[in-house]
């Protein structure tokens, strides 16, 4: 529809397109809706078990809706999981995640590169050769220099802030490079640890080996960019595409429209299906309304994929169960005990809290077995190598009921036989967390532990619970929060939480301030290990040690209820994107 009207489209303001999408009365949308009845929904949870509606049929408009806008469209600045998933529509990396369902999605496959890296025997040099026929949206070829320049932008944290900075820490641990905007090199390619001997070869030289290096290169922060297309902070408003789609428009907090990038060729890209002719994103801050529109059929799926609202999932499960998936997200929802706050400095007091907690009640507070997740026994999600059912506190026994006798025993061992007082900190913008805080408070009260719930501003949490000194001052003995991996390995999940060298004065995620040299050493070993299976064994050891220290009370391995419209084709959930649908593979039935 739109491709025949390019002149009018050029005239129309971006917002007008978005409004059209909002009202979903565009000719395009109408036509697609009429064909809706032809497809039968595939069945409850079908997309978590395999590919739903396998198809190679092209065309149509894939319509996303969501209540939360992208944190940024700039691939070097985005950190929201759904943004990473979505970024594959318009960015490419040297390597990326396989377009396979479930656990198979976490294996890495070459994307811009012809093959996975040639790794030197000392594990410190990674060499890639680039494919032929790879181009940006203006038809110019993607060169090794463009990839290097894109990666260099991560160094300019004063301008390009917000994204993951793993590559900066791995390639330049001393912080010698100042970023492309302050680069004295005329071509702005001054970073020494990446070499580009010609346009088709790129070599990474690591100061020390890192077994997850390719995992990190697969993040969108490694996307290429031509220096003359870099608009620095403004780049996020219209990224320059290297993938199968390019931006027609984007208005923050309203939405985006992507159309085919005609310079992209399928022959150069083994991963991206690129089935729809057009991809639209509509932002609607009313989450209840988002669910209503999905159920009505106005849109295909929720881009945020954080789970349907209470009312949305009730309607969906009762009336349209076959359109619902219940995937696992790799997130763990948990309570963490800061070791520096009395009396949680005593391991027995920590154990008392763990035993006193009724895991079933906490699961119900999170939303129950479907919308909340499975009761968690330890702090490693099932999708990560090294995960097992290690359960030293019997969380999975007796249907998750509290073990009051054990709790009282531990209280005595802690020297507080009658219980103690503490404060639970919880983010006020997360209703499920507030509900778990209340449930935990109720459980603890039964063994004499008097917990006061302090609701903190969720948007400020990095300077409240993320600051060890504030935590101590406020006396938070229990912090309720959640965590998901940036990339699916033990390094990506556990290291920020339990490696003592990751304790920061603000934005701290090691809330327990656990700093055990033995655990820190194990992380070094695991990271240096290039065999993922062996590394997994080490992460398993770390996880057991952390469990034994009783610093964490895991609630659930999170699951979500997500909507999958009947017209979607090639739908499957991918562990690589924390159990979201693999967006770039989706198509729509005509």
């Amino acid at each position, binding site marked *: 529809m739109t491709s025949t009207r390019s002149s009018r489209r050029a005239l129309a303001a971006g917002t007008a397109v978005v409004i059209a999408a909002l009202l979903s009365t565009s000719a395009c949308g109408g036509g697609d809706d009429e064909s809706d009845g032809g497809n039968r929904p595939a069945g409850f949870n079908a997309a978590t078990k395999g590919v739903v509606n396998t198809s190679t049929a092209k065309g149509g408009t894939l319509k996303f809706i969501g209540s939360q806008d992208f944190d940024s469209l700039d691939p070097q600045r985005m950190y929201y999981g759904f943004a990473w998933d979505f970024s594959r529509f318009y960015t490419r990396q040297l390597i990326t995640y396989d377009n396979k369902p479930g656990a198979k999605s976490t294996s890495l496959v070459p994307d811009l590169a012809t093959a996975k890296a040639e790794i030197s025997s000392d594990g410190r040099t990674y060499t890639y050769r680039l494919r032929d026929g790879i181009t940006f949206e203006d038809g110019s070829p993607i060169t090794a220099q463009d990839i290097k320049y894109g990666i260099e932008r991560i160094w300019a944290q004063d301008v390009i802030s917000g994204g993951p900075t793993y590559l900066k820490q791995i390639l330049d641990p001393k912080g010698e490079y100042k970023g492309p905007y302050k680069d004295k090199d005329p071509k702005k390619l001054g970073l020494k640890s990446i070499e580009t001997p010609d346009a088709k070869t790129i070599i990474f030289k690591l100061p020390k080996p890192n077994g997850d290096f390719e995992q990190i290169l697969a993040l969108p922060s490694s996307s290429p960019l031509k220096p003359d297309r870099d608009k620095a902070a403004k780049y996020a408003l219209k990224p320059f595409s290297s993938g199968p789609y390019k931006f027609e428009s984007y208005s923050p907090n309203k939405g985006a429209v992507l159309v085919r990038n005609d310079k992209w060729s399928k022959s150069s890209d083994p991963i991206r299906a690129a089935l729809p002719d057009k991809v639209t994103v509509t932002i609607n801050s009313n989450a209840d309304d988002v669910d209503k529109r999905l159920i009505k059929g106005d849109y295909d799926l929720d881009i945020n994929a954080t789970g349907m*609202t*209470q*009312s949305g*999932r*009730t309607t969906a*499960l009762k009336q349209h169960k076959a359109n619902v998936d219940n995937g696992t997200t790799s997130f763990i929802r948990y309570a963490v005990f800061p070791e520096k706050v009395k009396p949680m400095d005593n391991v027995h007091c920590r154990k008392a809290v763990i035993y006193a907690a009724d895991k*079933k*009640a906490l*699961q*119900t*507070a999170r*939303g*129950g*077995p*479907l*919308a909340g997740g499975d009761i968690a026994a330890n702090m490693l999600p099932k999708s990560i190598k090294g995960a097992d059912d290690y359960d030293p506190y019997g969380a999975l026994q007796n249907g998750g009921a509290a073990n009051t006798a054990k709790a009282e025993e531990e209280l005595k061992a802690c020297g507080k036989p009658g219980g103690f007082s503490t*404060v639970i900190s919880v983010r*006020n913008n997360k*209703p499920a967390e*507030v*509900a778990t805080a*209340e*449930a935990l*408070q*109720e459980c603890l*009260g039964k063994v004499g532990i008097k917990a*006061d*719930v*302090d*609701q903190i*501003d969720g948007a400020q949490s990095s300077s409240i619970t993320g600051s060890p000194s504030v935590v101590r001052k*406020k*006396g938070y003995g229990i912090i309720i929060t959640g965590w998901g991996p940036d990339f699916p390995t033990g390094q990506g999940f556990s290291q920020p939480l339990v490696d003592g060298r990751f304790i920061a004065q603000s934005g701290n995620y090691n809330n327990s301030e656990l700093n055990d040299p033995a655990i820190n050493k194990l992380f070094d070993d695991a990271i240096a290990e290039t065999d993922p299976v062996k590394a997994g064994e080490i992460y398993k050891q770390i996880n057991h040690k952390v469990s034994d220290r009783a610093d964490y009370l895991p609630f659930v391995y999170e699951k979500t209820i997500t909507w999958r419209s009947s017209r979607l084709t090639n739908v499957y959930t991918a562990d690589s994107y924390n159990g979201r649908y693999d967006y770039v593979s989706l198509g729509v039935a005509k």
Partner: protein
Amino acid sequence: MTAPLHDTGAAGTAPTDVTADMPAHRIEGRSPGRIAWMRLKRDKVALAGGVVVVLLVLVAVFAPVIVSLLGHPPNEFHEDRIDPLFGTPTGKWGGMSSDFLFGVEPVNGRDVFSRVVHGARISLLVAFLAAFVAVLLGTFFGIVAGYFGGWIDSLISRTMDLLLAFPQLLFIIALISVVPNKLWGFTGSGVRMGVLVVVIGFFGWPYIGRIVRGQTFSLREREYVEAARGLGAGRTYILFRELLPNLVAPITVYTTLMIPTNILTEAALSFLGAGVKPPTPSWGQMLSKAVSTYDTDPTFMVIPGLAIFVTVLAFNLLGDGVRDALDPKANR
């Protein structure tokens, strides 16, 4: 001061009834209070409001007893009453049964009946105490401003203008977030309640203050005040012995009308998360929780909503009745 005829001349229809009532017996002097009470008794709507108010106060005072007889402890979880898949109560009407009179709360299954009953305590306590603070401050500053006039009056009046223009709700929300967990020997909910009382009361006093000031203005030129002054009475005596007793009527009226406003303010603040701390039950908080389940469990929204509605309506009806009965505006 004790002559009923003054009132009969000035006040609308009710006074004629009063005179019509008395003929057969010997003429007797009646205090204004007695007359007001007779008028109030005649006002059926106000009386109904009054009865509800008395009942509510009794419910609040005896909340623990009522709950132990008819309900469950307000903070006790009953997950067995919750459908784990949806987090909503099992059974119709939000899980209402003879065991749970008003049903159970979604997700955790707390007894809605006992939470509403205990919520009445918080609501009424905060509303009454805040009204008390406001009346105390308002009366004092109003009477001082009205009696002394001049720069004292200007100062107090401008202060009242300032407070009336102040964005009260925003201020309280900001204040609550910085109030520490322990204060004045209270912790947790106690601190929050203390802050609510002081702040709502503090921002409420100018309303009473203005009325009292205006009344004092007109009263201070009266003969009996002149007489007291002539006999050498001190300022304090005149203020609190001569003027204050004659201000009781308007103060009573505005107090009864201020209480429902305070109840609504407390509910609004609780709704916005700036009220008492959970798990202490409060109506506003229940409403705010009910928002996320409004279409799957509407009962949970209706019940605290009704509680607020009935309470505010009862106080307003009673307040209107009291005003009609005392008719302070007709007091020349």
